[in-house]
């Protein structure tokens, strides 16, 4: 388990950096991040399923200007690590276990917003120091200060992931055996509700004049095709 948690920590830093600070090539999207985490931790299906559940939830929250959206990257990585913990320690596996992990990680993910905001506030200081370096004509120092900013984002990601995994483990070890049966009883309803809620939230934020018509038409046409097939 130690190796698995270390891998989780490394992934939380690397994928967390992609979220804001480096490249932004979307390896930080929950579907990608959780799948990759699951694959590296030896629970590929759990990671893939956690990513599917989380992908749409905050997709409509755009990282524009000073807006700090919820940290769905760390929620995805943390939920996958929790799924591994439940499998190894309690022998729980399958979609109900993954749903429990995701449900635990989502509220803990609020810590991510706090940590991200703190990282950006810390970087305010770097910007002030860089102004002084610019006045002194010291370009090298400006470069070094800029690279220091990566450290604050890396720490924020690691902190959030650690909080999700530690807090989630403390909550799930006693509660998961009690709740997993109820989650199983909900069948596909709970599983699909994540995607449906995410789709609704995205639909609510995509500002397109004939959006509701397009959505309704696609929805009805697809059901008709399936029904008549």
């Amino acid at each position, binding site marked *: 388990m130690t190796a698995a948690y270390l891998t989780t920590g490394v992934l939380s830093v690397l994928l967390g950096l992609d979220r804001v600070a480096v490249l932004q090539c979307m390896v930080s999207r929950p579907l990608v991040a959780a799948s990759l985490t699951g694959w590296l931790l030896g629970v590929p299906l759990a990671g893939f399923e956690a990513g599917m559940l989380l992908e749409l939830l905050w997709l409509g929250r755009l990282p524009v200007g000073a807006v700090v959206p919820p940290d769905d990257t760390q929620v995805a990585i943390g939920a996958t690590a929790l799924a591994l913990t439940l499998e190894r320690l309690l022998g729980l596996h399958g979609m109900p276990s993954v749903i429990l992990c995701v449900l635990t990680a989502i509220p803990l993910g609020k810590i991510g917003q706090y940590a991200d905001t703190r990282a950006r506030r810390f970087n305010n200081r770097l910007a002030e120091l860089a102004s002084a370096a610019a*006045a*002194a004509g010291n370009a090298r120092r400006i470069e070094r200060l800029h690279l220091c900013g990566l450290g604050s984002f890396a720490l924020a990601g690691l902190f959030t992931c650690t909080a999700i995994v530690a807090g989630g483990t403390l909550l799930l070890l006693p509660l998961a055996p009690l709740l997993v049966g109820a989650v199983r009883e909900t069948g596909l309803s709970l599983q699909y509700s994540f995607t449906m809620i995410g789709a609704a939230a995205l639909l609510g934020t995509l500002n397109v004049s004939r959006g509701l018509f397009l959505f309704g038409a696609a929805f009805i046409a697809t059901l008709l095709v399936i029904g008549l097939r």
Partner: protein
Amino acid sequence: MAVTRFPLGILLHGCVRSVLQQGSWNFERMQNLGFIYQLLPGLRRIYGPTLPAEVLQRHTEYFNTHPYMATWVAGTVLRLEEKQAAGEAVPLDAAAFRSMVMAPYAAMGDALFWGGLRPLAAVAALLLAIHGEMWAPLLLLVMFNVPHLVCRCSGWLLGYRQELASAELLQRLRLPDAAIWLKEATIVLLGILCALLAARGCEHQELAPFWGLILLPVILFFAWLSRRGVTSFSLVVLITASLLGLALIF
């Protein structure tokens, strides 16, 4: 002094550095350090290893745009800086150009990449994922990153070569229109995705797929709630509590 053009290597160096555009994002000056970080190889080429303080101060001012569009600004700024240093008259100085275009470029990039392409790639990947295709994440990465990397790299080259005309080029590309088309395509795929899930749910309950139509007003109601400011988190809590409560009672 004649204005010389940079070798490709310097431009590529700046382009590679652009991946750290938001490395020290801060609330006060946002991407200012990332912007000067990608300009520095070029500035050193123009002014030598010891850069004048006024040049550094000019480019550590407030800067914020879409991270992929920053290369378009940087390329042109570097060219203007080069001309200014050579004493050539420029219609707009580098700092003024940067201040003038960052907001419109941000609006274009946000709408195209964050509002259009990212949701489209995610929903397309989810459509594959619900069929159990484990390579769905790769589809997301490819769909998103081909246009992303083209925009990032071409921004440096075209911004530098076309100078102020690069803004007109971006205007001719009609990126806001492309963003709307991408959003419409996303909405259609979302409709298909939700219908497929609804049909699966019906099949699981041994009902005809048409019963899935019941979910349409529910989703639209949730979309309305979302537009009114109700968060996804609140909806997840509400639905989970309801479903788990029912499961525990019955």
